[in-house]
């Protein structure tokens, strides 16, 4: 079955439960997760590609158990972090995009063609040989997204990808997310980013407190935070 399944998943970092007995089946194309700081939404998102292993319960991605088949799952699931600086490894933009493909063992010409096509798609071709750490915040986040997309994952998970950006760059990055063909799970505080998604899940104290189409779920979240 193609989809993400959380089966009675719980996790804690000490005494406080971070994710508390969550069961979900996500088979929509674009799903948002919202919640206050510490609500467990980022931990839940990290479980999708095995960055966090739940203490109890199972996470299944496209029929693959994340705990047992983590490497296979990570080939299917790309992850975009809040702070792109933590995701950039190589000195130049082109090299960082190419870095993702080093483990894919593609022929050099194929890898180079994919890197060029990805740079073009994200408008980074003009910056290809620039030092990655000297890009603007928006450009860095686009680079982080390009570095994930070059591997052509089936699912993209993004943890607050626009939080550190100004309004213009946040809109630019959000537009790129909207244009993706991949299935998308986005954790965000920027509710307008999720308004045209297929489904929004609201978390509070490690539990799912609302799960609906965006209008209903976002209204529930707004009333929750007052």
């Amino acid at each position, binding site marked *: 079955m193609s989809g993400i399944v959380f089966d009675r998943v719980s996790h804690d970092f000490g005494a406080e439960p971070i994710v508390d007995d969550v069961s979900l089946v996500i088979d929509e194309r674009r799903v948002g997760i919202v919640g206050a700081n510490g609500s467990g939404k980022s931990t839940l998102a990290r479980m999708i*590609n*095995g*960055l966090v292993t739940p203490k109890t319960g199972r996470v299944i991605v496209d029929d693959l158990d994340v705990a047992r088949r*983590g*490497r296979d799952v*990570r*080939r299917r699931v*790309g*992850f975009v*972090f809040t*702070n792109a*600086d*933590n*995701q*950039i*490894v*190589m*000195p*130049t933009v*082109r*090299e960082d995009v*190419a*870095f*993702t493909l*080093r*483990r*894919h063992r593609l022929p050099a010409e194929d890898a180079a063609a994919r890197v060029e096509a990805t740079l073009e798609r994200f408008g980074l071709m003009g910056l290809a*040989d*620039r*030092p*990655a*750490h*000297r890009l603007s915040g928006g450009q860095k986040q686009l680079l982080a997204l390009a*570095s*994930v997309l070059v*591997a052509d994952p089936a699912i993209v998970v993004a943890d607050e990808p626009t939080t550190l950006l100004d309004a213009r760059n946040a809109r630019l990055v959000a537009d790129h997310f909207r244009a993706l063909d991949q299935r998308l799970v986005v954790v965000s505080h920027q509710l307008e980013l999720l308004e045209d998604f297929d489904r929004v899940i609201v978390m509070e104290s490690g539990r799912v407190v609302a799960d609906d189409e965006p209008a209903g779920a976002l209204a529930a979240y707004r009333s929750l935070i007052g």
Partner: protein
Amino acid sequence: MIGVFHPGDSLVHRAPALLKLGLLAVLVTVVAVQSSLVVLGAAAAATIVLFLVARLPARAAWRQIVPILWVLAFAVPVQWLFSGWESAATMAFRLVIAVALAALYTLTTPVSATLDAMQLLLRPLHRWVDADRVGLALALAIRCVPLLADIVREVLEARKARGAEGSVMALAVPVIVRALRTADHLGEALVARGFDD
């Protein structure tokens, strides 16, 4: 190596990184053991020719060599005073040529080509050394320099804003904590990008 690569299609740019690394090692060794000013002068001329062949902007090349000139501004007079002008000139030539050759390599070779060369070099040792891991460690070491520089700059600003200038604790503690946290995040990002072994 951090962001100094200058793209181009000259003969020097197109030469394999492994060949360039080998030549760099040989030339720097020769320059280091050579004490004839005539030979060192010829080596300096050859280095200039290599820069011209590489068609690098003079400004980019100059920026790489300037730091060593500051060192020499102090070291040469001292050497002259204690060992004579010939010894001072030999030292200056050696250092400038070695730095210029290293700069030529970094200006014409992307880091990824260096990593590939390292992996090629280590391949015969695959039983004892994981070439991929060495390459990744090298890439991370290079990446961490600007990351750490950013952390130190931000902490210095925060220390100044709090009026704690001069406090070693107010610098060291946040820098160490943030560096460790950044290392965690970087590790997490590597796992997410498939480098999970």
